[in-house]
């Protein structure tokens, strides 16, 4: 009996190894359980963009909101005013209430980043697994994930995406080539008292 169950365990591990897409299932399920079910997601963000060529990071802040239809509205309030909407149809930028730029989802290379941001904020692992190999750890009161691009077009732009969180996704770090990186810290709109 004991032998049988250990063989089972070995087999299961082997299967997990053979199917990397499902290897993180317990981990991701665990994180999903930890995350507060609060939809629509909204809150404030602080972004710091580190560039090798610049002495100082570019810092900005604003709000974000994910609608039930899965549309992400990203509003920068400082140092400039600009609103970007990442939707299924593509990306739209509004400056001073006027549409200043938009790109349709059928333009090659345009839709992926928006899709990834939307999936990150709604913890849609199945979408993220289509773009990344996911590894990570789940601790007592926090979790960390490292997402490596599984797709060559994406890996030309992004080396890795690191996520950190507890009951919420707290930080997104996009690591680019040449040591550049984008750090985004998120604060949910309504933080429960125990946080």
């Amino acid at each position: 009996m004991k032998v049988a169950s250990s063989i089972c365990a070995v087999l299961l591990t082997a299967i997990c190894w053979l199917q990397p897409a499902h290897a993180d299932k317990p981990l991701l399920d665990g994180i999903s359980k930890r995350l507060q079910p609060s939809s629509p997601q909204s809150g404030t963000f602080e972004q710091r963009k580190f560039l090798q060529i610049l002495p100082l990071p570019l810092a900005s802040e604003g709000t974000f909101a994910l609608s039930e239809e899965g549309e992400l509205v990203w509003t920068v309030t400082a140092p400039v005013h600009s609103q970007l909407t990442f939707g299924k149809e593509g990306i739209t930028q509004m400056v001073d209430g006027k549409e200043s730029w938009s790109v349709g989802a059928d333009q090659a290379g345009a839709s992926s980043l928006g899709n990834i941001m939307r999936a990150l904020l709604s913890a849609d692992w199945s979408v993220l697994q289509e773009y990344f190999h996911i590894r990570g750890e789940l601790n007592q009161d926090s979790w960390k994930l490292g997402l490596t691009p599984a797709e060559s077009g994406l890996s030309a732009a992004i080396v890795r995406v690191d996520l950190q969180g507890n009951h919420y996704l707290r930080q997104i770090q996009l690591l680019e080539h040449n040591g550049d990186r984008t750090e985004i810290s998120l604060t949910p709109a309504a933080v429960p008292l125990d946080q």
Partner: protein
Amino acid sequence: MSLPAPPILTSRRAQYLGLAFWLLVLCTAGASILHKFQQGYQFDSNLLALLPATEQDPAQSLAAERLMGAADDQLLVIVGAKDAALSLNSAERVLRQLESSKLFARVEGPRKNQDLVGAQQFLERWRYQLLSPAQSQQLQRADVTLVNDALGRLYSPLAALIGPKLIQDPLQLHFLWQMQAMPKTPFEPRQNWLTRQIEGQSQRLIRVHLKYSPYAYGYQQQVADLLHQIRTEADSDTQVLASGLVLHAAYGARQARQEISTIGLGSALGILLLLGLCFARLRIILLAFLPLASGVLLALAISMQFFEKVHLITLAFGASLVGVAIDYPLHFFCARRETLAGDSPAQSLFRILPALSLGLASSIAAYSAQAMTPFPGLRQMALFSAVGLLGAWTTVICCLPLLTPHTTEPSRGFYGSLVTALCRWLRRWPTIEQGRCRWILVALVSVALVAAINMNRQDDLRLLQTSPPQLLEEDARVQNILGADHPGQYFVIRAQSAQLLLQRELSFSRELQRLQQQELIRGYNAVSSVILPAAMQEENLRLQRQQIYAEGGLLDLLAEKMGLPTFADQARSQFSQNSQASPLLPRQWLQQPAGEYHRRLWLGDVDGHYYSIIGLSGIQNEAALETLRALADTDTAVVFVNRADQISQVLATYRQQLTQWLLLAYALVMGLLIFRYGLNSWRVLAAPATASLVTLACLQWLGAPFTLFHALALLLILGIGLDASIFFTESRCSPHTWVAISLSSATTLLAFGLLALSSTPVLQFFGQTVFIGIISVWLFTPCFVTPTART
């Protein structure tokens, strides 16, 4: 009654010489056909090739070839499922099945996105001069919103994409330009698969390149079977959709084969049975088909010599028109039956030779008019039919006397009773000599004429459509998921040089953008969306220098707002080092792997002019098509091509031409017959003419439309009716001739009339017309050609 035949027909030596000569000709014909095929001779199946050369622009046919040719050799397979992991698994399985079949030249499943990345890197060299027209305008007025927008993006998650190139492209103009300049595709690489999320399903695209022609019969069936197997083995939650010419061709071929094995077998058995009953000898039955077979062989050899590409339509209808030639041996054999004791085959042949030759001459006269038309299809058909009939006629003369048994069978058995029965029937049959019959005929012809004139003409492309609705529906679904350019609708643009062509494309694109905003079309693809005219590239470079990089320009403003004055210097030094590139030229881009799609659109130099295609996608409705047509009408250098319209146009023109020619053919034949029959010539033509009118009236009554294929069938009716009347007149209404006419009508009915049962519209139309027409010819001939009306 009979003159002795001249020695050239009766002498044994002359007969053997004739046979040897003719066998030599046929062998040469056979060898030349084989030789042509070895050289890779191919039949034409492009319907537009049937248009006269003047109406067919070389650039347009090149465009059609590029777009359709590429599409025809492909099979698109889309594997979809609600669950992304399942759709990936299924797609991988389908890919393995496709690859392991070894049926294809190339199977493109998951792809590295190297093309796009490579294109981005390639285009970067020209980043300071490639701008969209809107961007140029904004630069011209030094629009400050350019700076604000750039900052808005830089302070958003897009920074991850923009950051690495910030110094090279501080206002992100090139970044934005690239996104909108690349050909649109709703597919996005996910897990290295081109994937589209649509209607809650994750759809993965597999592009399969065929190894052999989509028309190769055995190959088509293998592909169709493989697809069937893939579908039955697929997971129940997975949907496998496929679209490609090969599937339609496979269906059409399978259907044709089924019909040949049912209708074809039925008619072959019927003909053999009929001839077997009448002549009771296998040798004679085989000899009956010899002239037909030799005629087709000769016709094919000569046509292949004369025309660079013989059209499949020529082959199909030409061969059926040569079918008239079955008359010749039948008349010969019936004449043998009628023969006086001791007559040699040569003597019998000599007796029917005038009728045989007159029948041939009148048919050839008719076809020669057809050969005058500028329509390649009609000309090919005319040559094919004329040569075929001539070949059949020669075969009868050179081969039959020698190969036919010398002894004549007495008219007993089935043949004997047939002669007796038909004789009795003939005696009772009303003729135009009787007053009452005359008035009935006049009334009938007038009514039929009115009905024929009022027939509903139809030239719709769907006439040629043989595919079942489920196949068409699947195509539509694949097209919807693909969201690709429609290969059947596009613009062809012309200019004097490559640069002027780019300029013209660009200004025409503005109109298309307007239609896009009105949501009449979803989008368009043009080479000029990547390659700007050289003059514009230089102008853009000047604008960048003046409005962005000059002291106090937009760059300084940006750096100031970022709070990093040194950034401006870094970007400026990049600009001064890298802004010397000469303009990007079309050929540089088209050589790139990512330029593949544009390579198809760029036709380049054709006969001293430059041409390109603008592809269209998502044409919303008929009104949108109308707008596109109207748009092309405003510019003489732009042509809107709608292949469905074009093919309908071909069908309509051919129908009109053929109808006119049919009337002319009657006139020509009449002119020829006058030499022999004088004032009685009308009697010879009356039967086919009346039969044709009555046929049209019947079709009208049945609710059938009048199409090109009905007109073609009327040609066959003229041929058969003419032969029947001429033989009947020449033999002075001999019962044996009437048996021959009846037999030939019956075989034609069996061979072509049964096509009325086909489910392919084209064959069905031809069949029903022949069916009614031949019966009418047979009924009307004895009305007009009467023993009292001899010359």
